[in-house]
Protein backbone atom coordinates (compact mmCIF):
# COMPACT_ATOMS: atom_id res chain seq x y z
CA UNK A 1 0.00 0.00 0.00
CA UNK A 2 1.44 3.41 -0.92
CA UNK A 3 2.82 5.50 1.91
CA UNK A 4 0.12 8.11 2.62
CA UNK A 5 2.71 10.65 3.76
CA UNK A 6 4.51 10.35 0.46
CA UNK A 7 1.23 10.83 -1.39
CA UNK A 8 0.35 13.85 0.75
CA UNK A 9 3.55 15.69 -0.18
CA UNK A 10 3.28 14.57 -3.79
CA UNK A 11 -0.22 16.02 -3.99
CA UNK A 12 0.97 19.34 -2.59
CA UNK A 13 3.51 19.67 -5.38
CA UNK A 14 1.09 18.45 -8.03
CA UNK A 15 -1.72 20.79 -6.99
CA UNK A 16 0.68 23.73 -6.88
CA UNK A 17 2.19 23.20 -10.32
CA UNK A 18 -1.22 22.52 -11.89
CA UNK A 19 -2.73 25.65 -10.25
CA UNK A 20 -5.21 23.42 -8.48
CA UNK A 21 -5.45 25.29 -5.15
CA UNK A 22 -2.95 23.38 -2.98
CA UNK A 23 -3.59 23.04 0.72
CA UNK A 24 -0.47 25.07 1.46
CA UNK A 25 2.68 26.29 -0.22
CA UNK A 26 5.29 23.51 -0.53
CA UNK A 27 8.90 23.95 0.58
CA UNK A 28 11.42 22.52 -1.86
CA UNK A 29 15.00 21.66 -0.78
CA UNK A 30 18.00 22.89 -2.71
CA UNK A 31 20.82 21.96 -0.33
CA UNK A 32 24.00 20.30 -1.38
CA UNK A 33 27.42 20.80 0.23
CA UNK A 34 25.77 22.87 2.95
CA UNK A 35 24.21 19.70 4.33
CA UNK A 36 27.66 18.19 4.88
CA UNK A 37 29.06 21.33 6.48
CA UNK A 38 25.99 21.69 8.68
CA UNK A 39 26.55 18.15 9.91
CA UNK A 40 30.09 19.09 10.96
CA UNK A 41 32.08 17.36 8.25
CA UNK A 42 34.75 18.59 5.86
CA UNK A 43 33.90 18.42 2.18
CA UNK A 44 36.79 16.05 1.56
CA UNK A 45 35.48 13.71 4.26
CA UNK A 46 32.01 13.36 2.75
CA UNK A 47 32.85 13.70 -0.89
CA UNK A 48 33.96 10.13 -1.37
CA UNK A 49 32.68 8.38 1.74
CA UNK A 50 29.26 7.16 0.75
CA UNK A 51 28.33 5.72 4.13
CA UNK A 52 29.01 9.12 5.63
CA UNK A 53 26.95 10.73 2.88
CA UNK A 54 24.01 8.53 3.85
CA UNK A 55 24.35 9.80 7.42
CA UNK A 56 24.51 13.41 6.19
CA UNK A 57 21.37 13.00 4.07
CA UNK A 58 19.56 11.25 6.91
CA UNK A 59 20.44 13.96 9.41
CA UNK A 60 19.44 16.69 6.98
CA UNK A 61 15.98 15.31 6.25
CA UNK A 62 15.33 14.42 9.88
CA UNK A 63 16.30 17.93 11.04
CA UNK A 64 14.71 20.02 8.31
CA UNK A 65 11.25 19.18 7.00
CA UNK A 66 10.66 19.63 3.29
CA UNK A 67 8.09 18.30 0.86
CA UNK A 68 10.48 16.50 -1.47
CA UNK A 69 13.57 14.40 -0.88
CA UNK A 70 15.88 15.92 -3.41
CA UNK A 71 18.77 13.54 -3.11
CA UNK A 72 21.42 14.04 -5.72
CA UNK A 73 24.42 12.18 -4.52
CA UNK A 74 26.66 13.50 -7.27
CA UNK A 75 26.56 17.05 -6.01
CA UNK A 76 27.66 16.15 -2.52
CA UNK A 77 29.44 12.92 -2.97
CA UNK A 78 31.58 12.47 -6.05
CA UNK A 79 32.79 9.10 -7.32
CA UNK A 80 36.26 10.61 -7.60
CA UNK A 81 37.93 7.40 -6.47
CA UNK A 82 37.21 6.28 -10.02
CA UNK A 83 40.14 8.46 -11.02
CA UNK A 84 42.68 6.79 -8.71
CA UNK A 85 45.59 5.74 -10.89
CA UNK A 86 44.05 7.40 -13.96
CA UNK A 87 44.62 11.13 -13.48
CA UNK A 88 43.32 14.33 -11.93
CA UNK A 89 39.77 15.59 -12.39
CA UNK A 90 38.41 19.07 -12.92
CA UNK A 91 36.84 19.34 -9.49
CA UNK A 92 39.16 20.91 -6.93
CA UNK A 93 38.16 20.13 -3.35
CA UNK A 94 39.09 22.97 -1.04
CA UNK A 95 38.47 22.26 2.66
CA UNK A 96 39.95 25.58 3.71
CA UNK A 97 37.45 27.57 1.66
CA UNK A 98 34.80 24.87 2.06
CA UNK A 99 34.12 24.74 -1.64
CA UNK A 100 34.44 22.59 -4.74
CA UNK A 101 35.85 24.59 -7.61
CA UNK A 102 35.39 23.55 -11.22
CA UNK A 103 38.21 24.39 -13.62
CA UNK A 104 37.25 25.62 -17.07
CA UNK A 105 38.81 23.55 -19.82
CA UNK A 106 38.62 22.72 -23.51
CA UNK A 107 38.70 19.15 -24.78
CA UNK A 108 36.99 19.85 -28.11
CA UNK A 109 38.63 22.42 -30.39
CA UNK A 110 37.07 24.56 -33.13
CA UNK A 111 38.43 22.53 -36.06
CA UNK A 112 37.31 19.20 -34.62
CA UNK A 113 33.54 19.43 -34.82
CA UNK A 114 33.32 17.27 -37.95
CA UNK A 115 35.37 14.50 -36.36
CA UNK A 116 33.34 14.88 -33.19
CA UNK A 117 30.08 14.54 -35.10
CA UNK A 118 31.29 11.62 -37.21
CA UNK A 119 31.72 9.34 -34.19
CA UNK A 120 31.25 11.20 -30.92
CA UNK A 121 31.85 8.28 -28.60
CA UNK A 122 35.06 7.27 -30.34
CA UNK A 123 36.19 10.90 -30.39
CA UNK A 124 35.55 11.21 -26.69
CA UNK A 125 37.51 8.05 -25.98
CA UNK A 126 40.45 8.52 -28.37
CA UNK A 127 40.84 12.31 -28.36
CA UNK A 128 39.22 13.93 -25.35
CA UNK A 129 40.10 11.41 -22.65
CA UNK A 130 43.83 11.46 -23.54
CA UNK A 131 43.71 15.27 -23.35
CA UNK A 132 42.23 15.12 -19.91
CA UNK A 133 44.33 12.21 -18.68
CA UNK A 134 47.81 12.27 -20.31
CA UNK A 135 48.47 8.65 -19.35
CA UNK A 136 45.26 7.40 -21.00
CA UNK A 137 46.85 5.81 -24.07
CA UNK A 138 49.38 3.97 -21.92
CA UNK A 139 46.67 2.46 -19.74
CA UNK A 140 45.28 -1.04 -20.20
CA UNK A 141 41.92 -2.68 -19.60
CA UNK A 142 43.17 -3.90 -16.21
CA UNK A 143 43.54 -0.25 -15.13
CA UNK A 144 39.79 0.30 -15.50
CA UNK A 145 38.72 -2.76 -13.49
CA UNK A 146 38.65 -0.90 -10.19
CA UNK A 147 37.15 2.33 -11.64
CA UNK A 148 34.33 0.22 -13.14
CA UNK A 149 33.75 -1.42 -9.76
CA UNK A 150 33.70 2.01 -8.14
CA UNK A 151 31.20 3.29 -10.72
CA UNK A 152 28.95 0.32 -9.97
CA UNK A 153 29.21 0.93 -6.23
CA UNK A 154 28.42 4.59 -6.80
CA UNK A 155 25.27 3.78 -8.78
CA UNK A 156 24.19 1.38 -6.03
CA UNK A 157 24.76 4.12 -3.47
CA UNK A 158 22.61 6.53 -5.45
CA UNK A 159 19.82 3.96 -5.70
CA UNK A 160 20.07 3.34 -1.96
CA UNK A 161 19.67 7.06 -1.24
CA UNK A 162 16.66 7.29 -3.49
CA UNK A 163 14.94 4.42 -1.71
CA UNK A 164 15.63 6.19 1.60
CA UNK A 165 13.42 9.02 0.33
CA UNK A 166 10.41 6.73 0.50
CA UNK A 167 11.30 4.29 3.24
CA UNK A 168 13.09 6.57 5.70
CA UNK A 169 12.06 10.15 4.99
CA UNK A 170 8.52 9.37 3.77
CA UNK A 171 8.83 11.97 1.06
CA UNK A 172 8.35 11.69 -2.69
CA UNK A 173 11.50 11.27 -4.73
CA UNK A 174 12.41 14.26 -6.87
CA UNK A 175 11.54 13.11 -10.40
CA UNK A 176 10.80 9.88 -12.17
CA UNK A 177 12.77 10.21 -15.38
CA UNK A 178 16.14 11.42 -14.15
CA UNK A 179 17.36 14.64 -15.74
CA UNK A 180 16.35 15.11 -19.35
CA UNK A 181 19.28 15.32 -21.77
CA UNK A 182 20.77 18.76 -22.30
CA UNK A 183 23.14 18.68 -25.28
CA UNK A 184 23.96 22.38 -25.11
CA UNK A 185 25.09 22.21 -21.52
CA UNK A 186 27.15 19.13 -22.36
CA UNK A 187 29.04 21.14 -24.97
CA UNK A 188 29.66 23.94 -22.50
CA UNK A 189 30.28 21.99 -19.33
CA UNK A 190 31.86 18.75 -20.50
CA UNK A 191 33.55 19.13 -23.87
CA UNK A 192 34.30 22.58 -25.25
CA UNK A 193 34.34 24.42 -21.92
CA UNK A 194 32.56 27.63 -20.96
CA UNK A 195 34.94 29.93 -22.81
CA UNK A 196 35.49 27.55 -25.72
CA UNK A 197 31.80 26.89 -26.36
CA UNK A 198 31.00 30.60 -26.10
CA UNK A 199 33.61 31.33 -28.77
CA UNK A 200 32.45 28.48 -31.02
CA UNK A 201 28.81 29.58 -30.78
CA UNK A 202 29.83 32.99 -32.13
CA UNK A 203 32.53 32.11 -34.66
CA UNK A 204 31.03 28.96 -36.18
CA UNK A 205 27.35 29.04 -35.25
CA UNK A 206 26.21 26.64 -37.98
CA UNK A 207 28.72 23.99 -36.98
CA UNK A 208 27.77 24.52 -33.36
CA UNK A 209 24.08 24.10 -34.20
CA UNK A 210 24.82 20.96 -36.22
CA UNK A 211 26.58 19.43 -33.24
CA UNK A 212 23.62 20.22 -31.00
CA UNK A 213 21.21 18.72 -33.53
CA UNK A 214 23.27 15.54 -33.63
CA UNK A 215 23.37 15.34 -29.86
CA UNK A 216 19.62 15.95 -29.80
CA UNK A 217 19.10 13.01 -32.13
CA UNK A 218 21.26 10.80 -29.87
CA UNK A 219 19.78 11.84 -26.55
CA UNK A 220 16.72 14.13 -26.67
CA UNK A 221 14.88 12.12 -29.31
CA UNK A 222 15.17 8.85 -27.32
CA UNK A 223 14.03 10.76 -24.25
CA UNK A 224 10.97 11.97 -26.14
CA UNK A 225 10.22 8.37 -27.11
CA UNK A 226 10.62 7.33 -23.49
CA UNK A 227 8.06 9.95 -22.48
CA UNK A 228 5.65 8.61 -25.07
CA UNK A 229 6.21 4.99 -24.04
CA UNK A 230 4.29 5.21 -20.77
CA UNK A 231 7.28 3.73 -18.93
CA UNK A 232 7.90 6.78 -16.73
CA UNK A 233 6.32 5.78 -13.43
CA UNK A 234 6.03 8.84 -11.21
CA UNK A 235 3.72 7.34 -8.62
CA UNK A 236 6.27 8.03 -5.86
CA UNK A 237 7.87 11.14 -7.36
CA UNK A 238 7.10 14.83 -7.01
CA UNK A 239 7.71 15.52 -10.71
CA UNK A 240 7.45 13.38 -13.79
CA UNK A 241 10.55 14.82 -15.46
CA UNK A 242 13.25 17.39 -14.79
CA UNK A 243 15.71 19.49 -16.75
CA UNK A 244 18.71 21.53 -15.61
CA UNK A 245 20.07 24.50 -17.51
CA UNK A 246 23.13 26.68 -17.01
CA UNK A 247 24.69 27.68 -20.32
CA UNK A 248 21.71 29.85 -21.35
CA UNK A 249 23.40 32.49 -19.19
CA UNK A 250 26.22 32.79 -21.71
CA UNK A 251 23.90 33.30 -24.69
CA UNK A 252 22.16 36.24 -26.25
CA UNK A 253 18.38 35.93 -26.66
CA UNK A 254 18.93 35.21 -30.36
CA UNK A 255 21.46 32.47 -29.58
CA UNK A 256 19.09 30.94 -27.05
CA UNK A 257 16.44 30.71 -29.73
CA UNK A 258 18.86 29.09 -32.16
CA UNK A 259 20.80 26.73 -29.91
CA UNK A 260 18.77 26.03 -26.81
CA UNK A 261 15.08 26.42 -27.50
CA UNK A 262 14.76 23.59 -30.08
CA UNK A 263 15.79 21.02 -27.47
CA UNK A 264 13.45 22.45 -24.88
CA UNK A 265 10.54 22.68 -27.31
CA UNK A 266 10.92 19.02 -28.26
CA UNK A 267 10.65 18.08 -24.60
CA UNK A 268 7.81 20.50 -23.79
CA UNK A 269 5.70 19.52 -26.81
CA UNK A 270 5.62 15.90 -25.74
CA UNK A 271 5.67 16.30 -21.95
CA UNK A 272 2.75 18.73 -21.86
CA UNK A 273 0.61 17.05 -24.53
CA UNK A 274 -2.69 15.64 -23.18
CA UNK A 275 -1.41 12.08 -23.67
CA UNK A 276 1.44 12.64 -21.22
CA UNK A 277 0.10 15.50 -19.08
CA UNK A 278 3.39 15.63 -17.16
CA UNK A 279 4.57 18.14 -14.62
CA UNK A 280 8.19 19.16 -15.05
CA UNK A 281 10.80 20.79 -12.85
CA UNK A 282 13.34 22.99 -14.60
CA UNK A 283 16.36 24.27 -12.71
CA UNK A 284 17.40 27.54 -14.36
CA UNK A 285 20.65 28.62 -12.81
CA UNK A 286 21.45 32.30 -13.09
CA UNK A 287 18.86 34.43 -14.88
CA UNK A 288 15.73 33.41 -16.81
CA UNK A 289 13.26 36.32 -16.93
CA UNK A 290 15.02 37.87 -19.95
CA UNK A 291 13.96 34.73 -21.85
CA UNK A 292 10.34 34.82 -20.65
CA UNK A 293 8.90 35.41 -24.13
CA UNK A 294 9.89 31.88 -25.16
CA UNK A 295 7.74 30.41 -22.38
CA UNK A 296 4.57 32.47 -22.82
CA UNK A 297 2.76 29.99 -25.05
CA UNK A 298 3.34 26.94 -22.87
CA UNK A 299 0.12 25.54 -21.41
CA UNK A 300 -0.52 26.64 -17.86
CA UNK A 301 -0.04 24.11 -15.11
CA UNK A 302 2.81 21.89 -16.27
CA UNK A 303 6.16 23.60 -15.78
CA UNK A 304 7.86 24.72 -12.57
CA UNK A 305 10.99 26.82 -13.00
CA UNK A 306 13.42 26.99 -10.12
CA UNK A 307 15.09 30.37 -10.38
CA UNK A 308 18.14 31.91 -8.73
CA UNK A 309 19.02 35.51 -9.55
CA UNK A 310 15.48 36.76 -9.95
CA UNK A 311 12.90 38.51 -7.80
CA UNK A 312 10.08 36.04 -6.98
CA UNK A 313 7.37 38.65 -7.57
CA UNK A 314 8.83 39.47 -10.99
CA UNK A 315 9.04 35.77 -11.81
CA UNK A 316 5.35 35.23 -11.15
CA UNK A 317 4.46 38.33 -13.16
CA UNK A 318 6.74 37.50 -16.09
CA UNK A 319 5.63 33.86 -16.34
CA UNK A 320 2.04 33.63 -15.06
CA UNK A 321 1.54 30.22 -16.70
CA UNK A 322 4.52 28.69 -14.88
CA UNK A 323 5.13 27.85 -11.24
CA UNK A 324 7.99 29.81 -9.70
CA UNK A 325 10.25 27.84 -7.37
CA UNK A 326 12.49 29.90 -5.11
CA UNK A 327 12.35 33.20 -3.30
CA UNK A 328 13.91 32.26 0.04
CA UNK A 329 17.12 34.23 -0.17
CA UNK A 330 20.47 33.37 1.36
CA UNK A 331 20.40 36.89 2.78
CA UNK A 332 17.55 35.93 5.09
CA UNK A 333 18.53 32.30 5.59
CA UNK A 334 22.18 33.09 6.26
CA UNK A 335 22.46 36.63 7.56
CA UNK A 336 19.29 37.63 9.35
CA UNK A 337 17.78 36.81 12.72
CA UNK A 338 15.25 34.01 13.02
CA UNK A 339 12.44 36.55 13.36
CA UNK A 340 13.50 38.50 10.26
CA UNK A 341 13.84 35.29 8.27
CA UNK A 342 10.43 34.05 9.37
CA UNK A 343 8.81 37.40 8.60
CA UNK A 344 10.16 37.28 5.05
CA UNK A 345 8.98 33.69 4.56
CA UNK A 346 5.53 34.64 5.83
CA UNK A 347 5.41 37.61 3.47
CA UNK A 348 6.23 35.39 0.49
CA UNK A 349 3.66 32.80 1.51
CA UNK A 350 0.96 35.42 1.98
CA UNK A 351 1.73 37.26 -1.24
CA UNK A 352 2.57 34.38 -3.58
CA UNK A 353 1.81 31.10 -1.84
CA UNK A 354 -1.90 31.26 -1.34
CA UNK A 355 -4.74 30.85 -3.79
CA UNK A 356 -4.65 28.72 -6.91
CA UNK A 357 -0.96 27.78 -6.70
CA UNK A 358 2.01 28.68 -8.89
CA UNK A 359 4.58 29.22 -6.16
CA UNK A 360 6.87 26.77 -4.36
CA UNK A 361 9.11 28.19 -1.68
CA UNK A 362 12.77 27.21 -2.07
CA UNK A 363 16.22 28.66 -1.46
CA UNK A 364 17.22 30.97 -4.26
CA UNK A 365 20.57 29.27 -4.94
CA UNK A 366 22.27 25.93 -4.63
CA UNK A 367 23.07 25.91 -0.93
CA UNK A 368 26.74 25.07 -0.88
CA UNK A 369 28.56 27.40 1.49
CA UNK A 370 28.34 27.46 5.26
CA UNK A 371 27.10 31.05 5.35
CA UNK A 372 24.29 30.34 2.90
CA UNK A 373 22.05 29.45 5.84
CA UNK A 374 21.97 29.29 9.60
CA UNK A 375 20.50 26.01 10.81
CA UNK A 376 18.11 27.76 13.20
CA UNK A 377 16.78 30.04 10.45
CA UNK A 378 16.19 27.15 8.09
CA UNK A 379 14.53 25.04 10.76
CA UNK A 380 12.23 27.93 11.69
CA UNK A 381 11.07 28.29 8.08
CA UNK A 382 10.60 24.53 7.69
CA UNK A 383 8.53 24.35 10.87
CA UNK A 384 6.47 27.39 9.86
CA UNK A 385 5.60 25.90 6.47
CA UNK A 386 4.77 22.50 7.96
CA UNK A 387 2.35 23.99 10.48
CA UNK A 388 0.36 25.53 7.63
CA UNK A 389 -0.95 22.05 6.88
CA UNK A 390 -4.64 21.71 7.55
CA UNK A 391 -4.89 18.01 6.89
CA UNK A 392 -2.92 15.71 9.10
CA UNK A 393 -0.20 13.97 7.15
CA UNK A 394 -0.95 10.35 6.46
CA UNK A 395 -4.64 10.81 7.09
CA UNK A 396 -5.84 11.92 3.69
Amino acid at each position, binding site marked *: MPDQKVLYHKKLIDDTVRFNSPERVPFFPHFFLWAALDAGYKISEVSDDWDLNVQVQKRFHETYKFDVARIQSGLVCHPRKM*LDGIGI*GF*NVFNDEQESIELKDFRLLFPGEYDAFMEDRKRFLWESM*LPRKFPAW*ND*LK*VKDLVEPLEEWKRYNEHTAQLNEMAINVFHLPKFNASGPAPNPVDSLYLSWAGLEGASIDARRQPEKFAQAIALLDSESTDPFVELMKSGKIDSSLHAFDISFGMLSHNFMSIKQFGKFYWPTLKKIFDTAFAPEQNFIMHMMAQGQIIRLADFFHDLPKGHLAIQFEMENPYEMRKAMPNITAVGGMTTHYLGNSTVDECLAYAQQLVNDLGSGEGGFILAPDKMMSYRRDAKGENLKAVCDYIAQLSVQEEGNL
Partner: protein
Amino acid sequence: MSDKANLEQSLSDYSKAVEELSKLLDFLPDDPVVRKNYIDTFADRFIKL
Protein backbone atom coordinates in the same frame (compact mmCIF):
# COMPACT_ATOMS: atom_id res chain seq x y z
CA MET B 1 33.89 -9.35 -12.82
CA SER B 2 34.73 -11.80 -15.56
CA ASP B 3 38.21 -13.24 -16.05
CA LYS B 4 37.51 -13.71 -19.78
CA ALA B 5 38.70 -10.24 -20.75
CA ASN B 6 42.16 -9.48 -22.09
CA LEU B 7 43.35 -7.27 -19.27
CA GLU B 8 46.47 -6.28 -21.20
CA GLN B 9 44.48 -4.70 -24.03
CA SER B 10 45.47 -1.06 -24.46
CA LEU B 11 42.81 1.62 -23.97
CA SER B 12 44.12 3.61 -26.92
CA ASP B 13 41.74 1.94 -29.43
CA TYR B 14 38.10 2.58 -28.56
CA SER B 15 36.59 -0.46 -30.28
CA LYS B 16 39.07 -2.98 -28.91
CA ALA B 17 38.95 -1.48 -25.43
CA VAL B 18 35.15 -1.52 -25.30
CA GLU B 19 35.10 -5.12 -26.57
CA GLU B 20 37.33 -6.27 -23.72
CA LEU B 21 35.80 -4.03 -21.06
CA SER B 22 32.35 -5.35 -21.95
CA LYS B 23 33.49 -8.83 -20.90
CA LEU B 24 33.99 -7.50 -17.38
CA LEU B 25 30.36 -6.50 -16.96
CA ASP B 26 28.89 -9.80 -15.79
CA PHE B 27 26.24 -8.01 -13.74
CA LEU B 28 24.64 -6.68 -16.94
CA PRO B 29 22.56 -8.62 -19.50
CA ASP B 30 24.61 -10.42 -22.11
CA ASP B 31 23.69 -7.83 -24.73
CA PRO B 32 26.56 -6.06 -26.52
CA VAL B 33 24.51 -2.88 -26.98
CA VAL B 34 23.62 -2.66 -23.29
CA ARG B 35 27.22 -3.24 -22.27
CA LYS B 36 28.60 -0.75 -24.78
CA ASN B 37 26.13 1.89 -23.58
CA TYR B 38 27.27 1.25 -20.02
CA ILE B 39 30.92 1.80 -21.01
CA ASP B 40 30.00 4.98 -22.94
CA THR B 41 28.11 6.35 -19.94
CA PHE B 42 31.08 5.51 -17.74
CA ALA B 43 33.39 7.36 -20.15
CA ASP B 44 31.06 10.39 -20.12
CA ARG B 45 31.31 10.46 -16.35
CA PHE B 46 35.09 10.24 -16.56
CA ILE B 47 35.10 13.38 -18.67
CA LYS B 48 32.92 15.24 -16.19
CA LEU B 49 34.78 14.34 -13.02
